[in-house]
């Protein structure tokens, strides 16, 4: 019962933001929905271990992205339009669509770094732990991604 309650609470707290993070990463909110569901099932399957992680939502996010990219590699004949990540109200938002298109050309791991850092709000060490890379790799990956996005501006917390 305790496990179930713990999982349910985790699911209800994190599902929305993980889904959004995956949708921005893979550019498709339908695919993200199925991927996140599958990732939560896998989290439940390994709940004794996952529940002890510092950032279990990061684990779910990465599993979902893995699943979505694996599915797309096997079955998708056409690239998903980045606009598929947005709700109908914002598909005319040029800035949002442009941002998604620019994200789509980044290597997947850089997209994941940006999303973990600036959408889910993870620190550099936390991002590194989720992606299983060194903190320095996260810093350089974010830097390269920002350069490609021509976003050579300070982030709101003053870091670059």
């Amino acid at each position, binding site marked *: 019962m305790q496990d*179930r309650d713990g*999982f*349910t609470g985790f*699911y*209800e707290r994190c*599902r*929305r*933001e993980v*889904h*959004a*993070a995956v*949708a*921005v990463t893979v550019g498709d*909110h*339908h695919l*993200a*929905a*199925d*991927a996140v*569901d599958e990732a*939560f099932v*896998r989290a*439940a*399957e*390994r*709940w004794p*271990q996952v529940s*002890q*992680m510092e950032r279990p939502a990061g684990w779910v996010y*990465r*599993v*979902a992205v*893995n*699943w979505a990219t*694996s*599915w797309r590699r*096997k*079955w*998708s004949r*056409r690239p998903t339009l980045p606009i598929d*990540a*947005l*709700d*109908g109200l*914002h598909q005319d*938002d040029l800035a*949002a669509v442009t*941002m998604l298109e620019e994200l789509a050309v980044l290597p997947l791991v850089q997209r994941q770094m*940006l999303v973990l*850092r*600036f*959408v889910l709000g993870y620190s550099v060490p936390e991002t590194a732990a989720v992606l299983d890379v060194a903190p320095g790799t996260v810093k350089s990956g974010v830097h390269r991604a*920002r350069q490609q*996005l021509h*976003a050579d*501006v*300070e*982030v*709101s*917390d003053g870091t670059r």
Partner: protein
Amino acid sequence: MALDEQLRQLAERVPAPPSGDADALFQRGVRRRRVRQAAGGVAVVAVLGIGVVTLVGNPSLPDIADRPPAPAPTPSEEGGDRTDREAQQAPADPDRIACEPDGCELWRRPLAGLPATPQWVAGDPVVIEDEQLVGLGVDTGAVRWQVPIGDELRAREGGPVDLSLGRVMLTGNDELVVLANTQGVQLVSQSGQARWARPVPADGAHLSWAHVTDTSVVVVHEAPPELDDTEELDSSQPLSLAVTITVLDATDGQVRWSDRAPRQVYALPTLADQQGLLLVEGEDQTITALELDSGEPRYRLPGGAELSPEHTGDVLTLRNPDGTASAPTQLFNATDGTVRAEVAGTVRALLDIGNRTIVLVTADGGDRPREAVAVDPDGSIAWRHPVEPALADGCCPTILDLDGGWARIADGPGAEPLIVDTRDGTVRADDPLAAASTDTTGVQGQIGRQLLIERPTQQDTNGFILRDHTGRTLRISGQATPDATARTEREIVLLANPRELVAVRLP
């Protein structure tokens, strides 16, 4: 605007996910964990009084209680392809350890005997029961979700759903499940979310094909010719009087296009999936490749009587256009219809191995395959090899793709095969798939690249044997040879006939 603010704003504009059921997801995860833990402690499984799975080979399995606890899983072990570099560096998957060394049966489920079931979706089977689409978990066979069949698929309000042979089809891919009958089409996601249902009445025609790609759903209806008592059916005339193609947008079920095909539509699911094309035959017997999503023609191929198109990889072939076996057969590039190569004789079987196509061809007007020819993407012939001694019967030639660059060419169960190296056509003396014992009659079919279905020789045993190329076997008794099989990512094989569905885990 700062980058982090831009990204956060972007995330806020993603629509909320459909409502979810945390409890259902938790239960699914717990069931998977229990199956993983329980399967490792059983060597022989008595299943529902129907039959017993016997593990042939080493019957003793490691005691799961003695094994150290599995390490905390890293995300790289989950969800990605096994070819990912990170997955290769990850610790061994405990799911595989639990069922070593010979595999085991996971579950069985009796089926209603309907012609449309079962169907595989993302490795999890979907069946029709009591006018509902039912999604089963591949690990346990337990029900994951149920969706009622929509009223759009009924001939009249409150009436039954027509699920009879020739009038219903269940199909799907990793993301979508489609049920089509002569009244309508319904689409459900592989996680059980109902997406849409549309009436697509067939006006008395029967349903000949239904298929879903990632963008479209195609249904084809055929109405047989109407003859009065004085007419005879001329075999040179098409069997179908009216063929209607309807293509729907997979997103919302809106009709993209609908048209009549003058003669017939060729059901080639791999062509639809890989090239997004639909082949139709016109009145002048030419073959037109239509863009599946728009109905616009992409290219045309020369037609002829008794055409039988085949597709594999990026190659499309038709029987030679003028109907005589001695004329060369053209291999076309499926993407654009250009000629890749010409081979003498009629193609009886073909196999795509990624960078090469192997074809078995006849010669001299006969039916019997005489030669195996390897054709490269640029149309050049890499090698040729006579196959006649191995295919003396000429009935049912097959080419199986084996590991390590070998192809197994044989004709019917029990026939002496020819094992050729696909790189240079050299012949291998031994058959890597030769039965380890005399307990089988020979290969009946293949699942994936490594698993064969064989029938036991004992006449009193109703069942079959799964065998891999290393000789390890798993005997499935109490069931006839399956009509359909599928192999999932998690080394689970699904085997189905109209009466029963069985899931086994491979070693």
